[in-house]
């Protein structure tokens, strides 16, 4: 994106999904029996942090088993993920931001996965749909609107504008304001990686059409 997108973006949704995930993964995931104890420990520590049950190696998502082919990067990502998941920004606000990131990056995997997570954190189906229409939709309250604007500005201009910053600073403290651009960068990075590696959608993830 080289422009700030405050509203709906027009793109051919099935075509984008074919482009990103239609043609097999570019790097095969590690098979379950090749997952070492250390990597499994990292996965389960992250899951425990998010309140989820431990998994066996065969049940680790393809995305994680692919990233394990670079153990140092994988470890950094897991730690970053945990820090953000247990961070200062309230979960519902974080997930609103991630959904807008996944949509602007036209990232089928990230979008679909975070529709589920967002709903667990209190985002409604109507709000998921509204995220695709961006901060310009009149139904957002001032704080949610500022979060979406912040994402739109970071993705389109790589900085947050003064009026958006002022709106966020009305509700958030300094640690939250520092966390926000870092968190947006992290989820843009995740979209870059998942799109570029052509990580296949998990069975329960319909991708960009998901609401």
């Amino acid at each position, binding site marked *: 994106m080289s422009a700030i997108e405050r509203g709906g973006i027009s793109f051919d949704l099935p075509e984008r999904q074919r482009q990103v995930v239609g043609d097999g993964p570019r790097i095969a995931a590690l098979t379950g029996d090749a997952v070492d104890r250390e990597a499994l420990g990292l996965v389960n520590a992250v899951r425990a942090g998010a309140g989820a049950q431990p998994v066996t190696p065969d049940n680790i998502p393809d995305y994680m088993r692919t990233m394990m082919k670079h153990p140092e990067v994988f470890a950094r990502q897991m*730690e970053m993920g945990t*820090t953000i998941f247990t961070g200062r920004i309230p979960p519902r606000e974080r997930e609103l931001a991630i959904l807008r990131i996944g949509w602007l990056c036209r990232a089928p995997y990230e979008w679909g996965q975070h529709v589920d997570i967002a709903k667990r954190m209190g985002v409604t189906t109507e709000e998921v749909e509204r995220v695709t229409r961006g901060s310009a939709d009149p139904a957002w309250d001032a704080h949610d609107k500022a979060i979406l604007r912040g994402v739109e500005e*970071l993705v389109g201009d*790589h900085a947050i504008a003064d009026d958006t910053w002022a709106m966020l600073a009305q509700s958030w403290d300094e*640690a939250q304001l*520092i966390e926000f651009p870092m968190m*947006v960068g992290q989820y843009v*990075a995740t979209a870059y990686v998942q799109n570029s590696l052509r990580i296949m959608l998990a069975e329960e993830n319909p991708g960009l059409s998901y609401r």
Partner: protein
Amino acid sequence: MKTADNIAAREAEIIGAPIRIEPLPDDELGSEVRELVRRIGSTLGLEAPETLTTYFAVLARHPDLFRLQLETGIFLFSGSAIPPRERELAVLRTAWLAGAPYEWGQHVLIGREMGFTEADTDRVRAGPEAEGWTSHEKAILCAVDELFDRQMISDATWAELKQTWNEAQLIELPCLVGQYLGVAMLQNTLRMPLARDARGFAER
């Protein structure tokens, strides 16, 4: 971001106004942060390991992120699969496209230690179509441009990178670009002033 006027306007937008969040004063650094700085400074062999840059002194207001950023810095010293010169090429192009004066200036200096000349950094500004890149270097720059433009590396660029790189290196590239884009977003948003003697976009 092509003309001198554009560059000056961007620099004014990002660092022409005061920093948005003040660095934590030295005497307010918690013991956890202080210990991390000392440990990591000595790991990296820094001369004055207990002196924080403004950037890290602001991050110290969020100790968890502070720790992650320092550890990521260490990882890039020791755990990266991409050769340093190729990594800097990707980071410089990322800083340029992100319109990030702080990151650009810092990484031109890092690049210089790896043998980058003024002509090299000028060519990074010009991008993958400039004369003189090897096909592998050109593919690295194309990948960065494609990630910014369409959030995915194209088939042609992927095939070219694959001729030289192994799977770990291929996995690392989009992570690396995303990581430095995130740092650029944060530094731009905070209006991180240039360090003393630093020259931002004027650095070549």
